[in-house]
């Protein structure tokens, strides 16, 4: 179903050699013959080789662009090769491919961005307490700036995008920690945003890129970017 409906599963990856094979296999097991694009963001390990052997198409960036650059590369690929929808997943095994069906259903029913939220059913990995507080604060900020739209897990990278949403990000996409800012850009661009329940697992192996002082910078950057993005106002066709 996914392949024939023009879906692309996008997995940005940076040094995920330990996890990428399981992630790709999980998608193939639950999503049939859908095309999987792994954007290898300048990894120094064997992420690209392992992803390719696992059955994914791999786009290797010659230098590390960061999550924003890698995700935007996937969006450009989808736009140029005529895909109608993109489902974005993390490479570290936290997102479960069985939840792709619910996200894709949301897109087929007309949503432009479908956010997979771990906080609706409250099953699986719920994130560490301090990070949960931060996520809640960001969710409230997004609600205030998005005219009351509540997305309980605005930092979730498990999302689906329609072609309309992809087009919004063709020329510009947030570079650092793009997920919350992406929602405000999308709301400004008259995108329909919904949230569906998903189950996340704790990171299997490797290290998260957000921790310590980086978390502090994350919050400042997100708050600043959110307000500035809101100040741009609505644009584009409804």
């Amino acid at each position, binding site marked *: 179903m996914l392949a024939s409906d023009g879906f692309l599963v996008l997995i940005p990856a940076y040094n995920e050699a330990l996890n990428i094979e399981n992630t790709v296999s999980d998608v193939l097991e639950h999503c049939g013959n859908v095309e999987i694009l792994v954007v290898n963001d300048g990894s120094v390990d064997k992420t690209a080789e392992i992803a390719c052997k696992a059955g994914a198409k791999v786009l290797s960036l010659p230098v*590390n662009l960061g999550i924003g650059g890698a995700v935007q590369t996937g969006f450009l690929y989808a736009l140029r090769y005529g895909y109608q929808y993109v489902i974005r997943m993390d490479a570290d095994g936290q997102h479960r491919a069985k939840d792709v069906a619910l996200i894709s259903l949301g897109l087929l029913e007309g949503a432009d961005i479908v956010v997979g939220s771990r906080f609706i059913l409250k099953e699986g990995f719920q994130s560490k307490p301090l990070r949960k507080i931060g996520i809640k604060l960001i969710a409230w900020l997004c609600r205030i700036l998005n005219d009351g739209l509540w997305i309980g897990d605005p930092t979730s990278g498990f999302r689906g995008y329609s072609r309309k949403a992809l087009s919004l990000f063709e020329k*510009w996409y947030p570079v*650092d920690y793009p997920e919350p800012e992406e929602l405000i850009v999308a709301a400004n661009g008259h995108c329909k945003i919904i949230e569906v329940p998903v189950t996340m697992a704790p990171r299997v192996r490797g290290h998260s890129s957000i921790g310590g002082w980086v978390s502090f910078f994350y919050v*400042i950057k997100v708050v*600043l*970017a959110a307000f*500035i993005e809101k100040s741009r106002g609505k644009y584009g066709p409804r």
Partner: protein
Amino acid sequence: MGPDKIQWLMIVVSVGLTGHLVNLIRKRRLYERYAIIWLLAAMGMLFFSIFRPEINRVAYWFGVDYPPSLILVFAVLALVFIGLHFSLVLTRVKKDQARLVQEMALLTEKFEIYLKVSTHENGSEKAGK
């Protein structure tokens, strides 16, 4: 006794700098990660412009008899750290640029070989006919 003229000037400069930074981010000419450090500097300037006696208190706490010296020391230190930060950013950009140029050269070479082979094969096919 209200603020001195110099305080008013610094308040205007601080607010103007903050507004300019926000505008640069809005126009996507400046990334937030590089603006944060300047925004902190602007807010620091604004704070000490408004609360001038605080400079004296901080200076005496450090054992500095002449408070303007402390501002100068902090300003120089801040510029050193900011300069070092951007030197690191530039180094990374240069490294990435070199890698991209190399990749482009290798791709061009690959493409030229492909064109030669493609032209040769087309020529052979036409001769065969």
